[in-house]
């Protein structure tokens, strides 16, 4: 049994670029999940690029919820939110989503650096509904990036920012996304924050980082995340199956920790 806490459902056909229905998107995911023996996926939303409006966020979250409703044993949703929106809109969207059984977490991306007090309302809502917050994180080097790429990243959060967020809200459960993007430095940043887990997604399946994470944090604080459908189960599951770990650590990462965190 494997639980993937970091999945982006596809929302268009590769070939024709026409839109997919939630059912069609679910079928694509289910085919991949069957190949990789993934039992359950957490859906972060299709498009979570910066600057989403309340209307577009509604659409993203409704799409995730629809998939989770179709296959409640296989999918759960995470409520994507842009903390730059007016606070009443942030609050109402989180209430709308988190009061539904399909939603079991909040997802934050690149809109606001997580040291900002704009995240306080998000943290308070997550605590009120007792759900974790999954936050994008990466020590990204911008040197080779286009101007558009740099603009996209301007309010990004790095692991030391996630650590600050975790210390401000020590009772909040935080999943720091992207083990490989965070790297060794990022793992050290959050090592003394017991309310932070890290997911295994990010970049290619580089060797060495996962074992370091297990040694530093313990396997109890690491969750399997694939970043599918941006990335593939071949590479992202290969990272976990191909790293020299003991069976107990691998089971913690692939299943047990997520089952505990999300109460499955």
């Amino acid at each position, binding site marked *: 049994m494997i639980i993937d806490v970091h999945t982006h459902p*596809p929302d268009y056909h*590769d070939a024709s670029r026409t839109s997919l229905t939630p059912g069609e998107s679910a079928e*694509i995911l289910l085919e*991949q999940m069957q*190949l*990789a023996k993934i039992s359950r996926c957490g859906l972060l939303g299709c498009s979570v690029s910066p600057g989403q409006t309340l209307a577009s966020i509604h659409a993203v979250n409704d799409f995730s919820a629809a998939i989770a409703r179709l296959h409640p044993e296989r999918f759960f949703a995470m409520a994507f939110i842009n903390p730059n929106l007016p606070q009443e809109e942030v609050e109402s969207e989180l209430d709308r989503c988190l009061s539904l059984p399909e939603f079991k977490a909040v997802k934050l991306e690149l809109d606001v650096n997580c040291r900002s007090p704009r995240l306080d309302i998000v943290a308070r809502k997550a605590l009120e509904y007792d759900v974790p917050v999954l936050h994008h994180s*990466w*020590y*990204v*080097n911008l*040197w*080779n*990036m286009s101007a558009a790429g740099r603009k996209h990243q301007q309010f990004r959060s790095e692991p030391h920012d996630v650590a600050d967020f975790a210390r401000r809200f020590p009772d909040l459960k935080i999943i720091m996304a992207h083990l*490989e*993007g965070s*790297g*060794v430095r990022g793992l050290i940043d959050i090592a003394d924050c017991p309310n932070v887990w890290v997911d295994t997604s990010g*970049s*290619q*399946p*580089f*060797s*060495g*980082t996962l*074992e*370091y994470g297990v040694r530093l944090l313990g396997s109890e604080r690491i969750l399997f995340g694939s970043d*599918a*459908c*941006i*990335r*593939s*189960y*071949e*590479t*992202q*599951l*290969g*990272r976990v*199956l*191909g*790293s*020299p770990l003991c069976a107990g650590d691998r089971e913690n990462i692939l299943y047990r920790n997520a089952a505990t965190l999300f109460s499955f």
Partner: protein
Amino acid sequence: MALQITDTNAVWGVWPIQRTSFPTLHSLDKEYERLGIGEVWLSAAASILAPEPDESDDVLFSQMAVYPRFRPVKTINPILANWESALRQSVAHHGIVAVKLFPTYHGYSLDKPFVDDLCELCAALNLPVLIQIRVNDERNQPDCLQVAGVPTESIANLSIRHPSTSFIALSPYLSELDSLAGGGENLRADLSYLDAIKPLERAKQRLPISRLVFGSGALWLVPNAARLKLDYCKLPQEEIAAIAAENLSPKTILHD
């Protein structure tokens, strides 16, 4: 019958900016055995950053001689005046199966005359030329080692200028297969950096199956990931077998 797999994209040794799994050649050999990968073309990681590659190459080639799975790949830095003699000595003493180039690490472009000379010699020696496009994710590079990928158009152009030489572009992104497709039939690409849903099916849409080969990117990447690309793909078995090893057969690529 078990699938025959040859890994064309692997290095061994210390890479100073990355922790790596498999601390000994023995442990790497065992991992390849577990994965059912019978042949691995291996070059020395230390040769990339060393002032000259021959010393670290020789150390690795002597260490790996007791592992039949590992086949030596010579790193050539053609800006060094002695590259030709170094290459000929490696052929004579170590039975190398390929030559590997790191153009952006060694600071030259593929349109230099010495690259043409090297390609002609490799054709004469029946040695494929492996061109390492990248060794890591550019976004994750430390400030002290920012190295761009090799422009794939320049690899395609090189393959057209040297139709008698076999080339393998190592570690292209999926999108870079489009420009590699503009190269000659003598240019292939490995699958180590193809990362999208149905990676091999998508790769086939961009590059003919006959021009795709298996590569893992080990020791930088865990080789298990590349193996899963073969296991999970739904291509016909003969196409999987072609990618896994048959596209490297003496009929289609030069070394025997």
